[in-house]
């Protein structure tokens, strides 16, 4: 059986956590298929220990393309290099994370390979008898799940939602093969030039990467009141989210928006303050592990999804909760 591939993403020499989640997914699939698991990494000055970590976390092989033209993600060189690798090794399955990179590169490649691609999958499995990849993703506003396959073309491609599984755990004894590939300069040609990356302090903890997200909706009342949500997020160690309503009113910027027209997130804990829970919003949070909702309206939709629902005024509850969390943290620190 040909290989199962995962794309390892790196920025500034660091491999993204989500790449290890992909290895966890890939491992299960490759075991079912009884085929090797390989990771592909593109970049510049990629450290040996980063490559080794991919092996420790499950890759049997790592394909490495290290070139100064790959330092930053640019669509044309990344596509040409991957197409060349895919043509040479013909993997059975090719997975990438549903990050801004994965969601740009994978569709561009799938068109050129004339193969199927399923976006933002949350469940992956192998169909018995056919060895087809069964790709399941939320559809129509996240209210239903659609299972999709690519029966006739290879590789079967999918992007996988970040945080939808745990990262593979490193095993110090694992061994694997590293294959360095070199290409002529013409493969790296690009009509796009990378200028710079600027960190946005306000999204320092990107909501899609955060373990805890504290969010507010229209119930917050006005922009100034968001301060208490920021404060609650800070004390609990989370990122700040917002409903579409609040973003449309300019109370928080778009990178904070949770929901179908913002970001779909899967944190360990989601705290919804004054959010009624539109279908669009719920679609964006339903894979959160724990949900706590605070809302004045006892019939708010959000309570259907909440593990703990408090019917009450967030303007009373949140300040008290912040105070109580402070006390708790102080006591813990003194232990």
């Amino acid at each position, binding site marked *: 059986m040909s290989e199962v591939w995962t794309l390892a993403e790196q920025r500034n020499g660091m491999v993204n956590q989500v790449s290890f989640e992909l290895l966890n997914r890939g491992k299960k699939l490759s075991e079912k298929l009884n085929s090797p698991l390989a990771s592909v990494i593109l970049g510049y000055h990629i450290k040996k220990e980063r490559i080794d970590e991919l092996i420790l976390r499950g890759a049997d092989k790592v394909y490495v393309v290290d070139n100064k033209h790959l330092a930053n993600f640019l669509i044309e060189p990344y596509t040409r290099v991957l197409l060349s690798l895919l043509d040479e090794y013909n993997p059975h399955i090719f997975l990438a994370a549903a*990050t801004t990179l994965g969601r740009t590169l994978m569709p561009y490649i799938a068109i050129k390979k004339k193969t199927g*691609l399923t976006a933002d999958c949350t469940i992956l499995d192998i169909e018995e008898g056919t060895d087809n990849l069964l790709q399941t993703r939320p559809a*129509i506003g996240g*209210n239903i799940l659609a299972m*999709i396959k690519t029966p006739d073309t290879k590789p079967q491609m999918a992007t996988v939602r970040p945080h939808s599984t745990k990262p593979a755990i490193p095993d110090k004894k694992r061994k694997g093969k590293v294959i360095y590939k070199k290409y002529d300069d013409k493969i790296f040609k690009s009509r796009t030039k990378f200028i710079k990356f600027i960190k946005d302090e306000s999204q320092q903890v990107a909501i899609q990467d955060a373990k805890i997200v504290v969010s507010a909706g229209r119930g917050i009342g006005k922009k100034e009141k968001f301060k208490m949500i920021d404060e609650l997020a800070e004390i609990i160690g989370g990122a700040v989210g917002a409903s579409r309503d609040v973003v449309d009113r300019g109370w928080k910027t778009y990178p904070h928006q949770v929901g179908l027209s*913002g970001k779909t997130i899967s944190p360990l804990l989601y705290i919804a303050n004054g959010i009624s829970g539109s279908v669009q919003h719920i679609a964006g949070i339903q894979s959160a592990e724990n949900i706590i909702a605070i809302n004045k309206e006892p019939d708010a939709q959000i309570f259907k999804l909440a593990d703990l*629902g408090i019917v009450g005024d967030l303007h009373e*509850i949140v300040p008290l909760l912040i105070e109580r969390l402070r006390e708790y943290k102080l006591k813990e620190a003194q232990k």
Partner: protein
Amino acid sequence: MKIIVPIKQVPETSNVKMDEETGTMIRDGIESIINPLDLYAIEAAIRLKEQFLSEITVISMGPGKAIEAIKEAIAMGCDNGVLLSDRKFAGSDTWATSYVLSQCIKKIGKYDLILCGERATDGDTAQVGPGIASFLDLPLSTFTSEIICLEKNSIRIKRLVEGGYEFLDMQLPAVLTVVKEINDPRLPTLKGKLRAKEIKIPMWGPKNIDAQDECLGLKGSPTRVVKIFPQKVSREGEKFIVKDEDDLSKAIEKIMDYLILKELI
């Protein structure tokens, strides 16, 4: 300068009701609207037109009634449109849809910039914008949050990525998919509405765009839907109602107990 904006008509779902039994959306009586995220692409195109001399063509693949979406875009300030409608297009996945739209763009011929919404709120794949770029073999920027400057043969853009923004210089022609942050879409004007009412929108089928039948619809789609099943949305945990001061402190303790029990703090 010539700008093409591919758009999609989608069901209006912001106030949608759910069928409690099946967990699916109740579609009866739901209106069709322009995909809300496409409005930002339309607005970006109109703003460029206001700055530079340009012509904006809106294209859409869908049933006959998708003409309403094209007309609305014209009422906002786009110049003309093409509707891609044919039974053979039905059942297309993102590969086949990107093929049809890119064949249409090839047929239109001259273009400098293709502006797309980030994704459609119904399909939610975000694959068609990049797909069009790939078929036309053009440079691509996704998640574009600002057009910084436009020159004769190039464009500088800012794009929203994890943890910050990337700045890119791109040669034209190019494809951009844009995010909400880029602008505030305007409403259609009365004058625009009148123009939209008068204008004739051509309807094109596979022959008009030199499309190969085997690349269309289900036949042209590499993916297959195996099955669709409801997702259990409801988990309804404990609900606690705060009626007085006393309940307020109980509520706080309930939250604290939950956080401690689940080892969240």
